[in-house]
């Protein structure tokens, strides 16, 4: 069964550094998403992406965040200058159509020191 993959599984970085989290969505899916989960809290939406542009973003997704689909398979989330409060599990998801089931990757655990 096709699945969403994410790399790395765990990233440790110093405050103020840039990080890029990578995702390979399911190959025929058209809609892509990033969510995050701070330890012990609920999963929160960050951004959705369709047709090479952001279709929706949350208040969390400020100017420090950006997304890109650099080629036909990868989908990336960049955090320009990490803060301590960015420490969280970041999940990538994809869906075939806008209201179809969203399939989640295994997550990248980001630790900012």
């Amino acid at each position, binding site marked *: 069964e096709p699945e969403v993959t994410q790399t790395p599984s765990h990233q440790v970085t110093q405050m103020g550094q840039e990080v890029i989290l990578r995702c390979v969505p399911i190959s025929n899916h058209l809609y892509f998403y990033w969510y995050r989960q701070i330890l012990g809290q*609920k999963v929160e*939406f960050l951004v959705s992406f369709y047709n090479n542009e952001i279709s929706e973003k949350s208040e969390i997704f400020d100017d420090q965040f950006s997304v890109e689909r650099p080629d036909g398979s990868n989908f990336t989330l960049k955090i320009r200058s990490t803060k301590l409060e960015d420490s969280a*599990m970041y999940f990538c998801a994809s869906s075939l159509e806008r209201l179809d089931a969203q399939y989640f990757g295994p997550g990248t655990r980001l630790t900012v020191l």
Partner: protein
Amino acid sequence: GIQVEQSPPDLILQEGANSTLRCNFSDSVNNLQWFHQNPWGQLINLFYIPSGTKQNGRLSATTVATERYSLLYISSSQTTDSGVYFCAVVGKYGNKLVFGAGTILRVKS
């Protein structure tokens, strides 16, 4: 925005017992999904169920969209069922999933 409430927040079961988890939402939904978060943090899709009833092995789910709730049934629970169960919905507008706070399930042997 749409609100999602899950109950109970915590549940402890003896292996072999049955359970029902509930998800209430505050407005019409276009998508509803149930997930199991395992001890490694992975979100496993259980059901995509904006309405109706589905079954998958020992798990089944029912969504009554007109009354704004969904139920997840776990029968003959096993220790591997332990983890956090999340309900998530997409409201009338947009396509973002809004998650509930989850139900923490512990199954004891």
